[in-house]
């Protein structure tokens, strides 16, 4: 295959992958939702869970986006320095979103700011958003694909706390967001908390936290402890599915952290809704792929 053919092949595969993400939830999310519905004893909440499972079944059978808001596409890329299409990757991802939008179809969710018009293509200036990491001595590429819906993007918030406010301040910041905005973001939520030095490091960490599987734990003992405490704490509030009350509120809380300046604690919250449409695909140099998040699926 020459470069052009490789490019076409990868664009086609990524377009199909985006489409898959729109109609099938990842295994970890499916499993957790099932668990939560079995533990639920609120009558209304049970009916909502039942609707959710029927919807996912139908979406998969009909190959239609399970939620009408197919979001703005976001990609988190970890690319080996020797992956042959490293220079073409940005364009491939952009093209694949455009292609998938026509073929699936996905909703047109790209509005140019200030000029205020919908591009009608689901791509625009800076959308899809692509975040890069380069890996030494590797010829593979790992791509997380995420559909950031409006409802679940809205609770996103970041700030910089003073060290005097401590991690107690982080807890307050997260909890306050849950009862104000979180309940409208289609719970049960996956809550991503980022801790770092400034707003943008914390914000990126909080989104990376949403890429981590439901049920995984931070390697740092204290961070893992805070994940558990927050998860139990937010669950005790009992938002329930759709914020209409229930036994639980969240699928989990994931914290991703990086170092900070001695005088600051950057903190951010990002939420994923129950319809947490993320997928991870890895390509080798010959474009053979593995999908970790959706077992047994081929494109």
């Amino acid at each position, binding site marked *: 295959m020459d470069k052009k053919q490789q490019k076409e092949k990868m664009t086609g595969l990524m377009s199909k992958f985006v489409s898959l993400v729109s109609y099938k939830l990842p295994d970890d999310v499916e499993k957790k939702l099932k668990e939560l519905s079995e533990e639920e004893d609120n009558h209304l909440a049970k009916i909502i869970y039942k609707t*959710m499972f029927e*919807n996912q079944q139908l979406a998969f059978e009909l190959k239609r986006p399970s939620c*009408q808001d197919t979001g703005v596409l976001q990609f988190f890329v970890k690319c080996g320095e020797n992956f042959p299409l490293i220079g073409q990757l940005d364009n491939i991802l952009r093209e694949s979103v455009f292609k998938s939008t026509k073929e699936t179809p996905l909703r047109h969710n790209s509005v140019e700011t200030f000029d205020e018009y919908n591009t009608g293509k689901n791509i625009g200036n800076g959308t899809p958003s692509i975040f890069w990491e380069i890996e030494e001595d590797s010829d593979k590429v790992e791509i997380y694909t995420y559909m950031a819906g409006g409802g679940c993007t809205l609770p996103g918030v970041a700030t910089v706390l003073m060290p005097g406010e401590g*991690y107690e301040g982080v807890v307050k910041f997260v909890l306050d967001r849950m*009862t104000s905005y979180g309940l409208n973001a289609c719970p049960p939520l996956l809550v991503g908390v980022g801790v770092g030095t400034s707003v943008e490091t914390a914000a990126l960490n909080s989104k990376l936290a949403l890429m981590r599987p439901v049920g995984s734990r931070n390697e740092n003992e204290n961070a893992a402890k805070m994940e558990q405490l927050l998860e139990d704490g937010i669950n005790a509030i*009992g938002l329930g599915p759709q*914020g209409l009350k229930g036994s639980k509120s969240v699928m989990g809380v994931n914290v991703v952290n990086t170092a900070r300046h001695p005088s600051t604690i950057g903190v951010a919250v990002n939420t994923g809704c129950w319809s947490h449409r993320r997928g991870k695909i890895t390509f080798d140099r010959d474009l053979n792929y593995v999908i970790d998040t959706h077992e047994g699926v081929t494109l």
Partner: protein
Amino acid sequence: MSKKVLTTPIKDEDLKDIRIGDIIYLTGTLVTCRDVAHRRLIEEKIPLPIDLKGKAIFHAGPIVRDLGNEQYEIVSIGPTTSMRMEKFEKEFIEETGVKLIVGKGGMGKNTEEGCKTHKALHLVFPAGNAVYGATKVEEIKEVHWKDLGMPESLWVCEVKEFGPLIVSIDTEGNNIFEENKIEFNKRKEEQYEYISQQVRFIK
């Protein structure tokens, strides 16, 4: 428990025994109507191209497939955040005589008043269930204001037992989200007190 189905045109009496937390289903006409359509009627004073009296609106932006010849098919349809329409909804109910407002999440004081004075309901369709929703739409009868783009156009849908619809504001002006919020906030404070003692990592 038997399924409670409301059929359009809906009259005041049909709604009088329905309370927050009840579940109902809708058969008849459901029209998608969101931000700009509300703004046009209330602020720009442009009359709506359809009569909504006794009918239902849906705060939603669907994915629609154009089959050509003015024929359309709903691919996915689900609610968007109702609160964005709060600013307009009371006057909207007053002007149109609409009886059911379907959306996602709660609405505020304005809508409570509108629902109480003019006997209307705000209902929640569980969001994210857009394929399920689409299977309850029998046909798209008409479309208006296509200049607003696919999500914002007024799609006039004929639906059958569309739901579950959870009553969030009833004709007495009770509001389930406002009631829940009081409880949620109380529990949140308790949790904060407890957790903040356990995370004193800076010593």
